[in-house]
């Protein structure tokens, strides 16, 4: 099962600068496993203790998987998965 995963700009360095990469899997967990096995640098940035890291949102067809079945949310062939970490905004002088 092949899907397209959209990579946010803050994580693109981990996937060779690509804006989106194909991945396989029938659930969010399988898709993320496939992704992190090929791009190990992503693992710590999107997964925490076997679950989606709390500072990242994962959307399947525009819906937040936390409101569906989380890691077990089914991913259909050809659907788009969006990874979305929070972005602070402008010039961060303080954090």
């Amino acid at each position, binding site marked *: 099962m092949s899907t397209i995963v959209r990579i*946010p*700009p*803050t994580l693109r360095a981990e996937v060779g600068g690509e*804006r989106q990469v194909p991945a396989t899997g029938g659930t969010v967990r399988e898709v993320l496993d496939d992704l992190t096995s090929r791009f190990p640098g992503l693992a710590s*940035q999107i997964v925490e203790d076997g679950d989606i*890291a*709390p*500072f*990242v*949102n994962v*959307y399947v067809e*525009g*819906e*937040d998987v936390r*409101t569906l079945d989380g890691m077990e949310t089914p991913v259909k062939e050809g659907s788009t998965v*969006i990874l*979305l*970490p*929070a*972005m*602070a*905004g*402008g*010039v*961060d*002088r*303080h*954090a």
Partner: protein
Amino acid sequence: MPSYRELLQQVKDSIEEVNATEARDLLATAEPPLLVDVRERDEWAEGHIPGAVHVPRGFLESRIEQVAPDRTRSLVLYCAGGVRSAFAAKTLADLGYESVISLDGGFTDWKRNGLPVQLPRSLDLAKRQRYSRHLLIPEVGEEGQLKLLDSRVLLIGAGGLGSPAALYLAAAGIGKIGIVDDDRVDESNLQRQIAHSLQTLGEWKAESAKRTIEALNPDVEVIPYLERLTSENVDRILGDGWDVIVDGADNFPTRYLVNDAAVWHNIPLVHGSIYRFEGQVTVFKPHEGPCYRCLFPQPPPPELAPSCAEGGVLGVLPGIVGSLQAAEALKLALGIGDTLAGRLLLFDALSTEFSEVSLRRDPACPVCGEHPTITEYIDYVEFCTGRPSDTARATHA
């Protein structure tokens, strides 16, 4: 051919009329009729019956469907003395309105009976010219423009997002704009922060933006707050009374602080954020839609959250995102349209694509959820960086 008097008599015989006290009683019923003032603009401007809508006789046929789409709803029409409204009632009956009543004696008789009169505010000639393109839009119009002139919007930050938002809100005639920013204008800001210029290098950004706004639109009162928003000052600043907050903050501690304060003060928050070519925009409406913590319960660890200072940003990107924020703020101030509440709009300038994801309220949200666990301001720097705020401030200094 009937004479004018005969024609008027024919019309009056064919319609229903009430006198002033009967009209007052009708308007006090559980399902009051819609009251329509058919006089000219200058007559309306000198006072009208409270609750009336204004549709001048000359525009009656073309505009009545906008104010009274339901032809079964009862209408009471009035003019100055009851003649124009009688002819208008006949016209509306011909248009299929089932129950149209004319106020015999009109507004003159209404006033003579000592019944209440509302003196409307209206725009003066200069404002009618300045805002003429707003006045032409049915969803805004004079009433909407007066609403904007009465509105108060607080901007968090006068940087990349705050600059375009401030300029468009000021140009639109938002009556009062507060700007919270403790930073000064630097040369590296001018690539995108269009409220500032070479003339204001080194000035407080809030003061620099104030000067730009005042040169653009003297109708706007600007309140600069030359301070960083903190747990200590946030209640004072928000307590000054704002209808909408536009968040153009540049750091996570301020984002979470503004969110919590907006929920507790019950003020809608227009969120925007940017990085390189991409932006995110949404509206957080307290207790109606999700809040920032429903979207991102935790900020990313600092090492995973590169800032624009480290990663850069395309100069026009905040112009697009900040303008979208201004559009949302104007809709909120006017009470029109569908805002981005419950939707996160994603913009990618490199591919020129907009996309959207759904946002939902988190019942377990620590601030706006069913059983909130955070009920007062916390140390937001520590929450976002793991270091208490004093250490973080020392590092920054």
